[in-house]
């Protein structure tokens, strides 16, 4: 078994070029669980958690974006200054596991695992984040909505890394909600992220754990754009109800040992309605 603990992006990419099927290890909070349970076997590991380029972030004031290195941890994301720019991602990050997990878990690892219940991904989807991929062959950018293609499946090619994720800074109210059977440290039965873009007068809504991938809700978003007074933060009860119904209609949940499809649909309706009301407190 070979293990490369990379100190630079270049070293990581070289190692991956030499062993394209190596397991990329960031915080290890998904990888180690899979290895320990025997769900994954590996003979080569490239550890990226110490690669400075991946562990850092930059704030671009002119574009109003934050570029998060793939190995930035949730513990850092749910604290200021990142939390002030990316409040919904901070809220989602706060729900990931326990303090110990958040100290290790990275946003890139969350995205690369591509679980339908990945909490950070729901936020990235609502914010139309851009995923920057890199390999020894070069770089490419993928909209987050096209990154994940199925449960635990994504477009990463062998030898390719997530280098960073560019996320727009909040341009209005945004928030994340997650239903689980426990008040902390729980896999989402369903989650949702709503983000208002005030200048554009639009509302985005993404749902997790209710489909094979994170889902956006175009119909609900259209209702909000048409019926909410975004500047005045105003929405009628009828608008909130219609928005919530449309969100529920977008969900494609299943029954499993964690919950039922019927409850998940219900939870989506409730969460979507409440999120819109938080965003638009005035009737």
């Amino acid at each position, binding site marked *: 078994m070979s293990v490369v603990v990379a100190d630079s992006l270049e070293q990581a990419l070289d190692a991956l070029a030499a062993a394209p099927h190596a397991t990329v290890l960031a915080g290890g909070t998904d990888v180690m669980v899979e290895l*320990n*349970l*025997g769900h994954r076997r590996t003979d080569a590991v490239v550890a990226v958690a110490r690669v400075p380029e991946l562990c850092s972030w930059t704030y671009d004031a002119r574009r109003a974006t934050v570029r998060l290195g793939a190995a930035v941890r949730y513990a850092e994301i749910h604290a200021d200054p990142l939390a002030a720019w990316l409040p919904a991602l901070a*809220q989602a990050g*706060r*729900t990931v596991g*326990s303090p110990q997990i958040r100290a290790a878990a990275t946003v890139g690892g969350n995205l690369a695992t591509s679980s339908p219940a990945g909490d950070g991904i729901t936020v990235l989807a609502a914010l139309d984040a851009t995923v920057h991929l890199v390999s020894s062959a070069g770089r490419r950018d993928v909209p987050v909505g096209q990154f994940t293609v199925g449960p635990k499946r994504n477009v990463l090619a062998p030898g390719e890394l997530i280098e960073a994720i560019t996320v727009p800074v909040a341009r209005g109210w945004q*928030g*994340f*909600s*997650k*239903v*689980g*059977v*426990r*008040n*902390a*440290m*729980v*896999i*989402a*039965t369903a*989650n949702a992220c709503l983000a208002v873009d005030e200048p554009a007068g639009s509302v985005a809504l993404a749902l997790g754990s209710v489909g094979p991938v994170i889902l956006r809700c175009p119909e609900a978003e259209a209702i909000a754009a048409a019926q909410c007074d975004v500047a005045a933060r105003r929405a009628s009860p009828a608008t909130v109800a219609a928005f919530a119904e449309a969100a529920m209609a977008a969900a494609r949940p299943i029954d499993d*040992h*964690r*919950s*039922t499809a*019927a*409850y998940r649909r*219900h*939870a989506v309706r*409730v*969460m979507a309605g*409440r999120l819109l009301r*938080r965003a638009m407190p005035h009737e």
Partner: protein
Amino acid sequence: MTDVTVRPVVDGRLGTSALRPDGLAKTQGTFAFSGDLSADGMLWGATLRSPHPFARIRSIDLSGAWQIAGVAAVVTADDVPGKPTYGLISADQPVFARDVVRYAGEPVAAVAGDHPETCRRALAAIRVDYEVLTPLVDPELAIAGAEPIHPDGNILRHQRIVRGDQDLVGEVVVEGTYEIGMQDQAFLGLEAALAIPDPGGAGVELFVATQWLHEDLGQIAACLDLPADRVRLTLGGVGGAFGAREDISLQVHTCLLALRTGRPVRIAYSREESFYGHVHRHPARIWMRHHATRDGRLQRVEARFVLDGGAYASTSSAVLVNAITHAQGPYVCDSATVEGFATRTNNLPCGAMRGFGVVQACFAHEGQMDRLAEACGLDPVEIRLRNAMRTGDRLITGQVIADVAPVAECIRATAALPLPDEPVGGRDGDPLRLPGGAGLTADVGHIRRGIGWGVSIKNLMYSEGFDDFSTARCRLADGSVTLKFATAEVGQGFVTLAPQIARTVLGVERAVCEPIDTTIGSAGSTSASRQTWMSGGAVLGACRAVAEQVVAHAAQSWGVSTAEVELVDGVLTSPDGRQATVGELSAGRVFEATFEHHHPPTEDLDEDGQGNCHTAFAFVAHRAVVDVDVELGLVKVVQIATAQDVGRALNPLSVRGQIEGGIAQGVGLAVMEEIVQTDGRVRNASFTDYLLPTMLDMPEVVAELIEIPEPRSPLGAKGVGEPPCISSTPAVLAAIRDATGKDLRRVPVRPFDIAL
């Protein structure tokens, strides 16, 4: 100037909150749990388990495993030298399945190898040819006469209780069906053991985390066909038990592999394997019909209990009797018609778990008391006070409650405890305090608060004629006491209590416990809330016998009669004023005594469920306050208030620890803890999906100890381990019903039960 008070007596006596001797090591991570055991030249063992809930084994091909380098032994049912089966009450469970597997997870073979990875590969290389059969998973089908899945049949026990007026119909009649899911003990210290063979395989020594060393010893010796004196057990550090270590799990496998290889062998389960490796709390379905007068006096209980025991008997028959004999709860009730079944199915085997059948009964009878309160127009506290049993009242088995029975006191004291000062929706706008917690699902306006009650009676010690005695030895030399017993310390604190007893009786400061092993007589199981009473009684008896010897020695040297010598707080005094301390008198001398404590005998139940089958009882009341997000069905348990009948708090800190821990388990069962099985397959054998309460789920606990010393108990104390987890569960459910107005009759309650 202040007076200097000379402390007349030693620290750490009974009634003080003496600290655990292993507390610091446990908090600092240096305590050796049995999972930390190792030995030179040790091999690793691992177990092959059936993937099917029910299948015939056509053949087992071990050749692949033998071909893997580093494999030292591969064993199956054919290699078990002695009795092929074991079991606590009836030996119906195979060491390894031979012709048929009866639950998913049943051991089929075991290997020993030079590395865990070697073992993993060896297990993967074993080919078992199964003919998969349709599993029996519905207990009602087992009762209805489904094809037996075991030679002993599908009914593990059927017992009825018939008492009083069988035709009585109350002015008020309420009925309901209640369901309890399968709870796991979920101890943190996983199953682990280390076996070291004697040269030539003449015997074996086992270090293991267990609840009852001597019971393990007997079962291991029988399966290995060794004389009992060739099997020695020492307690490994135990990281929690809660009933899950009462049955054999890896004991026989580990010893067998060690004897086969002639080398030390260690087996340690993973979390997933642990879910398959031990028995669980019985899932139950209970129907009850209560008859009462218009003013809410309980007259008759009708009930039908179905407890699913899963594939093997374990303690199912005792659990069932506990359940049905507690059907009336802590209330006076003259007539009863109760029927109970413990069934055998192809589900996971069930057995002991904290509360032992009474958890199930209590969930049902407390639901009924709330229904009765509503039907009679009484509040939940009033109906319970009106029916509260007292010393001298009878159980539906005819047994008279001879114990202190402060049921009304517990209820009143609980009612007097302050309600949470935390407003609905939490303090300081902290969203983490709302139902849904970190998920930020609710705003304060979505929350409704509810209050609910639960009160219970729990038997202490073993029942139905069982003599679960305990043995202890006290040795006094040079002013220090050494105590020896086989009482399994599983976290309950007997290693703290035993020295407290010695310090109190003998007045010496230094009192230590020897290793806990089988070189002394049995202590019985650390279960049934019994060790403070039983092993406490044994240590007390041994210490008193030593005290008598010291007194006799002093009397002799002073030339007076023993009756004239007084021993108070470690100081002996003669009538003429001569004094000596126990320390002085034991300088260069050894006093030693061994004592067995037995409780008064109990009886079997007759065909009508009549008989003095239980030893003693303890009582407790719980009041739960919950906040519920009704629309999403999410719950935050805000507070549990409780007053518990403890007899005497010999170590108040320990008692409070039991109360808080038990409540955590009771809350867990109420709102989240359940092993989910579909067609006999476990769906959530991990802590990712078997959810335990976190700090955010754990309520504030306000507890009052009702201290009325129990004259029948050697130290005046009652067992305190089980009651906290019994009525806390129905109290939480009642509070959720109160908040939501929904007729919820199942635990754990799931969000969709509330929301949809």
